[in-house]
């Protein structure tokens, strides 16, 4: 029984989310906000914005497939109802990040081809590992993969992106802010549900630990592809465009080369995985570094 969900209800979700931090927003941001002119004017920065946003759409499409797929695998009614609200959260995330692609100038007829062009193959493999568990209706592995590994990664990545965009792109920062609020519920469900369930199924641990290791590797490979040889920082330097200070995890991201940002992000996510998994009795497995 998911006792921690006793205070959770669809009503609570309505008052927190659509009537709370999303009230008055349009696609997650304030009405009238737009992308910075620089992104439309500069080809390199525009392409990097497209590439980044496509990864968000790919990740959220995976989360939508996973959370909806897990509803019928859930062993109790409270978890089914929670996953129903999570499914709507994830569908919203797919929509708002897709809308950002439109805002960046992608034509609706070109959406799928743009996603196919920029989707990172390591992120697609990351999603594949999770969706295989969901397809098998493996609730315990599916929730660890979805609500602890995927959502744990998203929670940290969105926080970092929020810090980077807070001053330079308030529109995108507002979009991210709402998704971070959603992720709090999702990681909370993952930890609390699995924290009690793993005690009932201790034999699942080795399989889950292998999945975490595999997903973590593909996550790190995605980070490596995203940060190494990323031309955006050099372009900012070339344009002599001052980057606003972006404090996160006690460092200033604006003063860091992309490779160092990759290292800070990877270390932060892996540390979080280790702590979260340790709390619920799953031994963190160190992935290979790409």
């Amino acid at each position, binding site marked *: 029984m998911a006792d*921690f*969900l006793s205070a959770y209800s669809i009503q609570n979700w309505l008052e*927190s989310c659509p009537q709370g*931090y999303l009230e008055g927003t349009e696609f997650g941001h304030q009405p009238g906000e737009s992308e910075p002119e620089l992104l439309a004017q500069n080809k390199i920065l525009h392409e990097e914005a497209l590439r980044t946003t496509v990864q968000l759409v790919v990740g959220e499409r995976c989360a939508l497939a996973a959370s909806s797929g897990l509803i019928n695998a859930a062993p109790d009614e409270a978890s089914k109802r929670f996953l129903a609200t999570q499914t709507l959260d994830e569908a919203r995330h797919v929509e708002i990040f897709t809308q950002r692609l439109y805002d960046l100038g992608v034509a609706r007829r070109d959406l799928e081809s743009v996603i196919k062009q920029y989707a990172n193959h390591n992120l697609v493999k990351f999603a594949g590992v999770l969706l295989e568990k969901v397809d098998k209706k493996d609730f315990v592995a599916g929730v660890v993969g979805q609500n602890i590994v995927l959502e744990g990664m998203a929670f940290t990545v969105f926080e970092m992106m929020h810090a980077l965009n807070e001053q330079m792109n308030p529109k995108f920062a507002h979009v991210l802010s709402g998704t971070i609020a959603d992720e709090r*519920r999702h990681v909370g469900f993952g*930890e*609390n549900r699995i924290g009690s369930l793993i005690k009932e199924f201790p034999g699942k641990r080795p399989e889950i630990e292998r999945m975490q290791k595999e997903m973590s590797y593909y996550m790190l490979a995605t980070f490596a592809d995203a940060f190494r040889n990323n031309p955006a920082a050099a372009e900012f330097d070339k344009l002599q465009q001052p980057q606003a200070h972006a*404090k996160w995890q006690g460092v200033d991201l604006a003063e860091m080369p992309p490779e160092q940002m990759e290292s800070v992000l990877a270390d932060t996510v892996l540390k979080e995985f280790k702590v*979260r998994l340790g709390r619920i009795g799953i031994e963190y497995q160190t992935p290979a570094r790409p």
Partner: protein
Amino acid sequence: MTDPLESAEISEKPDTQRQRFVLDETGFDEVPKRFRKFYRKWRGPGDSLAANEVICPVCKVVIRSTRELRPGDRIYCMPCMSRLIVVMGETGMLEALVAY
């Protein structure tokens, strides 16, 4: 349920009565309106916790009670639905452990 402090661990003598706090709105809007004053966002390095506050280890939100918190207290984090137990951390600051 209103205050996140669900139960205090020990029956207290008059001379150890807990300090009371009046909570203001903090701009936190991730829970229904009547609960919003009980939470705030952690502002990172430079921020500090008052005697009625503790950070949720699951979602990193600061949980605020109308009463001073003490080790052994059981509290609830509404943004991530975690039930927590207050402990004294190694640094001498109050911390919270998740009770599954």
